[in-house]
């Protein structure tokens, strides 16, 4: 398959965001969309992430974005006519508060969430054990729970978007790396790739950790940095965990996927800002310590593998959405800071609306690239 000479939109990055945006645009009738992926689909952060989705956020915007995505995922197998299964399991998120201060914040969060129609509840440790019977209730002072939260199979979900997009005429080129972007008179003219040149006036930069490099090709400084993030997975077990268990102070998220494996991850803010995806032994030690304390009954579950991916971070740990003032035609969908997977349906909707000049379903104008220069950072405490 040869690259077309031109395209209406070139999407850089074959992760969940790129594939979802491609499908969304095509679904709105846009023709001649090209997706460029330097490796294989979901090979970057998407395929390495925990693939959870929660509506329990502390900032209204994040709640709304997640809410949109949950609604989409609930029907995604049908909407995308996917023959396999995206494995959206709404087994809920149980988020634990390690101390009173955190519990106070959670009370506010639940009030906000409920006001938006998100069915979360505030729980005592005892009430939490009714949901996750084997959790060590001495380790937290309160918890919140939302049954509608859950997790998906990130490979199948990306696959579903990609297949649906291709069905609508989108052309996805794997193993095709972007090597340059031609800008004339502050306007994008073409994209150079290892497979040739494509003339286009619109480039969506959904390149995850590589979005900074893609931006630079067009002379745009995308204020993101990359940090390694590690996860481990156990052998498959019969269903024993129920909801995703998450703790911000505890620095853990842990879930059992429908197949039976238990996946858990944590963050390490001392990680150097680089592209390493090698594994580290300290991670396993820290991770197993937390898991052993919080969910001691899992101590005999056997770890099969640890792996690493990137968080594409911004200063305020919020995504960058939308056009770039200095270069006409470049749209950013990056800097998700670990939440790109769960936000993808909303991301796709919003970026499509921006490209087509339609009113935004959710106002994300404050998540533009300009906020960093303006020093109008968005605050969200509820992150791992």
């Amino acid at each position, binding site marked *: 398959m040869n690259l077309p000479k031109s395209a209406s939109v070139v999407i850089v990055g074959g992760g969940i965001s790129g594939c979802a945006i491609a499908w969304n645009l095509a679904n709105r009738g846009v023709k001649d969309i090209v997706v460029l992926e330097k490796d294989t689909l979901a090979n970057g952060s998407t395929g390495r992430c925990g693939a959870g989705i929660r509506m329990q956020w502390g900032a209204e915007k994040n709640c709304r974005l997640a809410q949109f995505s949950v609604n989409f995922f609930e029907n995604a197998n049908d909407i995308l006519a996917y023959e396999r299964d995206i494995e959206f399991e709404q087994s809920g998120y149980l988020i634990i508060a390690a101390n009173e201060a955190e519990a106070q914040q959670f009370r506010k969060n639940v009030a906000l969430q409920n006001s938006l129609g998100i069915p979360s509840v505030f729980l005592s440790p005892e009430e939490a054990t009714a949901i996750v019977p084997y959790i060590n209730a001495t380790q937290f002072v309160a918890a919140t729970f939302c049954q509608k939260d859950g997790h998906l199979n990130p490979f199948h979900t990306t696959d579903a978007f990609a297949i649906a997009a291709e069905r609508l005429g989108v052309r996805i080129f794997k193993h095709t790396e972007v090597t340059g972007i031609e800008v004339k008179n502050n306007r994008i003219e073409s994209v150079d790739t290892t497979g040739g040149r494509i003339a286009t006036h619109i480039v969506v930069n959904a390149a995850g950790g590589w979005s900074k490099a893609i931006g630079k090709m067009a002379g745009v400084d995308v204020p993101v940095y990359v940090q390694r993030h590690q996860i481990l997975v156990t052998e498959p077990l019969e269903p024993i965990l129920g909801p995703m268990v998450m703790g911000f102070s505890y620095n853990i998220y842990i879930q059992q996927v429908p197949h039976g494996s238990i996946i858990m991850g944590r963050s390490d803010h001392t990680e150097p800002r680089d592209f390493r995806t090698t594994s580290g*032994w300290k991670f396993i030690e820290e991770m197993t310590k937390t898991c052993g304390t919080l969910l001691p009954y899992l101590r005999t579950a056997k770890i099969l593998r640890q792996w690493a991916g990137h968080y594409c971070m911004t200063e305020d740990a919020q995504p960058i959405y939308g056009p770039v003032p200095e270069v006409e035609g470049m749209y950013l969908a990056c800097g998700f800071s670990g939440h790109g997977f769960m936000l993808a349906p909303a991301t796709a909707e919003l970026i499509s609306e921006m490209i087509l000049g339609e009113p935004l379903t959710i106002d994300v104008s404050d998540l533009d690239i300009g906020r960093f220069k303006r020093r109008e950072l968005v605050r969200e405490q509820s992150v791992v």
Partner: protein
Amino acid sequence: MMYETDLVVIGGGPAGLMAANTAAGAGASVLLLERDRHLGGQLIKQTHKFFGSEKQHASERGIDIAALLGDELKSLEDRVTVWTHATAVGLYDDGVITVDYDGTYRKVRPKRIVAATGASEKFLSFPNNDLPGIYGAGAVQTMMNVYGLRPGKRVLMIGAGNIGLIVSYQLLQAGVSVAAVVEGLPQIGGYAVHASKIRRAGVPILTSHTIVRADGKESVESAVIAEIGSDWKVVRGSEQTIPCDVICISVGLTPLTELLWQAGCEMRYIPALGGYVPARSDRLETTVPGIYVAGDAAGIEEASAAMVEGHLAGLEAALSLGCGGDGCEEERADCLKQLSSLRSGPTAEKIRAGLSCAHGCQTPKRRDEHA
């Protein structure tokens, strides 16, 4: 607790034992990790006499060579620590090795590493290839020669390389009948003398044949084999059913290199050496400075070559640490001479070709010692 030492040798088979002996003999402090409960690796399953020359203990049986090398190690015990039932489970980019030492978590940070991790067996695709009663040749050897168990009554052997032929012979020695040895190639891959040994004991060797399927309700009851043409397709009508309760798969080995991949060594796909092997210098140092490789992990060869490679890798690792004294140059030269003589014959033609691809790397610049 971080265990610090000059050299960690991963694997206590022929290559690893030689590496540990040599490095310790040269004055390095060595930690030897062996996954099994006994030292010797595959040697302890080798009841046949080895080829080679006296220097590689030719005409001794593998199991006796294991004991011999183990004894030598004991004589160096003030410099060698041996952990058996110890699996190196991770080799990280900061040079740390995590170890499952008899169920206990240990961390080791050596100055040098010799990876002598050996090989794993290749598997084969055919219908019902997962039926109980289908084993790898290594498993059959383990059952017979370690646990003293007959794998079954009647075995169909797939593969007429040296291992397939030797294991067939070992089966006969254990009182198990071998229905046939089936080989896809038009000629026997292993040494003719091994083939003759089982042939005169009544085992047919069917070249240009393949297994078509296995059958049985809960375990193997029979297999269908058939002739294959030069196009590798089954010759219709040549199928025959072989009653058997065991199918032994011996279709080759592939270097066990997971730890080297983890460590970030440059790996090259070299079919003649069994699959992916680390690129290395002629001193057996990989592209990650301080990590050496020897034996089957460096490419599938005979145990005799593995022993010499282990010797060389152990020596090079020790020398790079400033150990060793007079005579090391001669020792190195002698190892290289032994290797080239073992690899000089027509049966080693493939190995020579393979090695020329694997050895294309310069001795890397050593990074600073771990602070």
